[in-house]
């Protein structure tokens, strides 16, 4: 593809929220004034040292940051190539990277005087993080979740309810994350005056992709500092799974201008790229949905197609717009891993390192299993362990039982 390389990969988006042709603001007029208010509030918050200081306090003492950068010695030995480090986002309070972003957005909601928070969730990790911070700050919390996901992620539904949130099962469409996002947008259109929509990934209308990325960039910033401390240099490669892509963007963004660092995003290939999957870049093309232009799974008439992944958190027919741009411009390599590959990686990491990963980062581990053996032993590879597998234990247990029969 013949696209001019920018001076910096980190300067986007432009003032109207575009990363190349991607991003933008494709929403109903009812929401536009609110989105403009949010942009203004975020710009002011960024410039306010008190906002950052308050965030830093909660990140350290409530979330438990910095998360460790752990040398996975047995995985490294087993694969026989690159030195593999795990960025331990699963050790955060609530069990995933989602809490970094939610903390930021809830602080913004409080600045804007909003008392009612809505969110959409797939696997439930974003819902749990939102319910947690709403409990902490005494805010009303409503979480939209596809009815299919409510079934397969019961544990997180119970957690959200324990935290005082109302979980709304969504019966429309495919009854998964895409439909939960539609319902959340409908709620927002209806309750626009008192409601803050806490989006869980680097997607949606501008400024969401930017502010979620900024709140998640703590992952990459810490990794940079930790790797300098441990190895005295930058890593050689980064690997992260992608649904909407917030954990990946958080790890990648601080490294985008470091040309020596290879970057890999891993989409969910489900049953395979020629069958049901959730790999928007590998199997989709640019379109407009949920407030932004980005790679989407759709048919020849522009109708959105069902996504499929073993992991509810990756089961979305789109991807954040900045990822679409990084793909087209060639800075990040987007790969994909199937359900079966993710399951194998889930088991390998559990048995070798005593760490049960969520099914989402198991997709990233699956590609590490391919990439690491081909790299020299002094190659430093960081994989983002974006969430822990507690929520997936019943589902994986059932699958493994079925397979052993």
């Amino acid at each position, binding site marked *: 593809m013949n696209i001019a390389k920018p001076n910096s990969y980190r300067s986007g988006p432009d003032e*109207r929220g575009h990363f190349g042709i991607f991003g*933008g*603001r*494709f*929403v*109903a*007029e*009812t*929401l*536009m*004034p*609110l989105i403009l208010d949010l942009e203004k509030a975020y710009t002011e918050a960024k410039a306010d040292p008190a906002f950052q200081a308050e965030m830093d306090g909660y990140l350290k003492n409530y979330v438990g940051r910095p998360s460790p950068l752990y040398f996975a010695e047995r995985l490294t030995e087993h694969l026989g190539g690159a030195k593999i480090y795990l960025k331990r986002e699963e050790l955060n309070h609530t069990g995933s990277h989602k809490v970094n972003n939610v903390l930021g957005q809830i602080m913004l909601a409080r600045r804007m005087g909003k008392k009612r928070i809505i969110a959409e969730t797939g696997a439930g990790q974003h819902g749990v993080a939102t319910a947690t911070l709403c409990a902490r700050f005494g805010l009303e919390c409503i979480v939209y979740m596809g009815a299919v996901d409510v079934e397969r992620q019961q544990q997180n539904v119970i957690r959200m309810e324990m935290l005082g949130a109302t979980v709304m099962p969504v019966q*429309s*469409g495919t009854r998964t994350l*895409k439909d939960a996002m*539609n319902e959340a*947008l*409908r709620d927002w*259109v*209806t*309750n*626009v*005056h008192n409601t803050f929509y806490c989006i869980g990934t680097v997607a949606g209308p501008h400024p969401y992709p930017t502010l979620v990325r900024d709140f998640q960039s703590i992952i990459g910033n810490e990794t940079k500092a930790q790797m300098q401390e441990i190895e005295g240099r930058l890593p050689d490669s980064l690997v992260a799974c992608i649904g909407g892509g917030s954990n990946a963007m958080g790890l990648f963004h601080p490294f985008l201008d470091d040309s020596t660092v290879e970057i890999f995003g891993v989409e969910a290939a489900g049953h395979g790229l020629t069958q049901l999957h959730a790999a928007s870049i590998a199997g989709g093309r640019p*379109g*407009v*949905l*949920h*407030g932004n*232009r980005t790679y*989407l799974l*759709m048919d*020849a*008439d*522009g*109708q*959105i197609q069902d996504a499929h992944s073993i992991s509810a958190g990756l089961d979305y027919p789109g991807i954040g717009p900045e990822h679409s741009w990084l793909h087209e411009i060639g800075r990040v390599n987007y790969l994909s891993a199937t359900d079966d590959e993710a399951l194998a990686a889930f088991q390998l990491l559990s048995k070798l390192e005593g760490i049960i990963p969520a099914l989402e980062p198991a997709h990233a581990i699956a590609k590490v299993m391919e990439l690491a053996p081909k790299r020299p032993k002094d190659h430093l590879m960081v994989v983002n362990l974006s969430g822990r597998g507690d929520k997936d234990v019943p589902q994986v247990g059932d699958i493994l039982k079925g397979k052993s029969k």
Partner: protein
Amino acid sequence: MTTRIDTRFAELKKQGRSAFVTYVMAGDPDLTTSLEIVKALPKAGSDVIELGIPFTDPMADGPSIQAAGLRALKNGTTLKKTLELVRGFRKDDNVTPLVLMGYYNPIYIYGVDKFLADAKTSGVDGLIIVDLPPEEDEELCIPALKAGLNFIRLATPTTDDKRLPAVLSNTSGFVYYVSIAGITGAAAADATAVGEAVARIKRHTNLPICVGFGIRTPEAARAIAEKADGSVVGTALVDALKNSLDADGHATAKTVSAVAELTAALAKGVRGAQQAAE
């Protein structure tokens, strides 16, 4: 350039009458029945037709219109076939204004320039694209105006005086005032609040103002007609259509007449408003 929409509103103004605007989904429940319904609307008293473009993920629509879109898609409706439907309607009716209403993605995938050319030759007069605010005017609004199609913008209760000029800048044909912050088919609009909002928008534009969302009955349509240049009914007609279907969701002998009869009753309500006001 004068479009069918401009001509129709000029005529109605002369008659001292408010417009009755009807919304139905293209291809609901199937393309053949849908064409019959669209043909029946002007005869039943519809002054302007809004034809929905089916889309899988209509984020500003309620369950009725979402279900209508999915019925249409299931029965093979595409954007191309929606334009063919308009062409079929134009064989017998060259005066009733017809506006396509929907979301941007099917048009973006069809190709903007090709879509505008095909829409114009099919007999489309205007476009209402819910997820294209003025911030994205370069996508479709400006090319549509160049192609001779009206681009009708939504104004809402959240659109304040500061923002109104931006919303109205490239709008033509009429302004569609969304009477509630919410999705289609939701709470009923309050006629007093609508009257105030219409007066506020009129300070910024000479375009006709039609009011939609939350109008379901002849009485409600009449109350809105007293305050605005037009009232839009969609969900109630879509519900009437749905209630006429058989258990498998197929059209029955009653389907076309169910929509036509409700249209006639609503049109009578709207016309009653003017007579009462005179």
